[in-house]
């Protein structure tokens, strides 16, 4: 598996898009850090971009890589390598190279700005951890979709729809429910609903660390009382891990039956 992983990363690191992605983050964080004096605000802006953009890029890169390397994957399948190792190698390769673009793109301006000594270093680390999680989650989801749908255009469509669901539609429905059932106690519901969407979960995790929960009113206080504790952090990080583990398990069971 390590060999496949090595070559996928190698292949991706030579692709133009990895650099476009890296330079985008580099420029974004440079301008945010240097044009903005308030580091908390800069991190919130970065977070808003990361929680929406990383899933989108992860999804698109995932499906694109799968479909465009299909014939090559077939060549690998005829080699003496276990099936699951080929796909796990590719999956980890894409996720890692995207994470690398993210970490370097945001990390370099951060280091240059000299934030290592500041208190913001914890928030910043959380931001990177969440970004990495989102990469691994959405590439896994994208691979699941690509493995299930042979038609490239259809697969692409479903993948974008999946991203749209988590990034926009889910929140709209969630909001609608909150407003409609305004008279009922919705704390538990809110808590569970945020767990079921990795984008929401990531956003709340960072917001609460930034002490911005006051903006969220009573529910914010309730969420703070849960996620704010170390117990809450452990639960939410395990929820994010489940979002990686479950798609991988499905990928493996799908691979056992798939024809190429």
């Amino acid at each position, binding site marked *: 598996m390590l*060999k496949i992983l090595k070559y996928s990363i*190698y292949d991706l690191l030579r692709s133009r898009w990895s650099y476009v992605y890296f330079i985008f983050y580099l420029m974004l964080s440079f301008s945010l850090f240097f044009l903005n004096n308030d580091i908390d605000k800069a991190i919130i802006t970065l977070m808003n971009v990361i929680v929406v953009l990383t899933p989108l890029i992860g999804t698109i890169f995932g499906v694109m890589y799968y479909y465009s390397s299909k*014939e090559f994957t077939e060549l690998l399948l005829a*080699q003496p*390598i276990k099936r699951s190792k080929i796909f796990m190698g590719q999956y980890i390769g894409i996720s890692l190279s995207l994470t690398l673009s993210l970490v370097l793109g945001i990390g370099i301006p951060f280091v240059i700005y000299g934030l290592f000594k500041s208190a913001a270093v914890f928030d910043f680390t959380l931001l990177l951890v969440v970004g990495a999680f989102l990469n691994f989650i959405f590439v896994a989801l994208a691979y699941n979709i690509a493995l299930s749908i042979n038609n490239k255009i259809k697969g692409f469509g479903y993948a974008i729809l999946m991203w749209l669901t988590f990034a926009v539609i889910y929140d709209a429905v969630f909001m609608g429910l909150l407003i409609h059932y305004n008279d009922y106690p919705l704390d538990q519901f809110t808590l569970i609903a945020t767990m079921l969407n990795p984008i929401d979960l990531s956003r709340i995790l960072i917001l609460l660390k930034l002490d911005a929960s006051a903006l969220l009113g009573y529910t914010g206080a309730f969420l703070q009382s849960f996620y704010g504790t170390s117990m809450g952090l452990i639960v939410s990080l395990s929820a994010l891990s489940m979002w990686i583990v479950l798609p991988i398990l499905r990928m493996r069971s799908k691979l056992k039956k*798939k024809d*190429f």
Partner: protein
Amino acid sequence: MIEIKNLHKKFGKLTVLEELDLTINKGGIFAILGPNGSGKTTLIKCILGMVIPNKGEIVLDGKSILKKWEYRNNLNYLPQIANFPGNLSVIELLKMVKNLRPKESNEKELIELFGLTPFLNKKLGNLSGGTKQKVNLVLTFMFDSELIILDEPTTGLDPIALIHLKELIAKEKEKGKTILITTHIMSLVDEMADEIVFLLDGKIYFKGSVDSLKKQTEQENLEHAIANLIEKQYQTATTK
């Protein structure tokens, strides 16, 4: 030796292989023929473990190969469409495949044979279809394996490369290898094949030497003999 017993494969509602039994003895060139959509590629992919049959058994040298992968170390496969990652150069691809298969390889000889030396440092994305097919051939023939499976090996090759390919196949046969070829080029079959396996509607319709096929269909020319086989099938299908 390959033994295939009672092989079934369905893609959705479409039955591609049905109760297929086939024994291929060690050594020699076997041409797998049949009209488009007769299940040739599916059969080959079942042997490779890329397509998972619904029912049946495939035994290679006495061992079942279903759900296994180690046996592929002794098997070389030339896929129908050669499409490689565009960012890698030819030499990197060769190194990578060698790295994946810790086995002796003689790629230098083959690179020279197909005149690929000037292309070694070029990106695979910039190569023409024929050159890619040559790279594909080098990847297939550089390892010493008992079983060689070629799916449409002549696609896009120029006449000189074609002659080299034929020589390569003949050489491997002399070494006692088992070679399975699917092709639509009848002259290649006529010239090289020891035995023909003719697939029709997912079943073996004919298996035997080229001569016995010609005799059976009362045709002098292999192309006509094959056409005759397909025609008979069309007729029985319409009279049904």
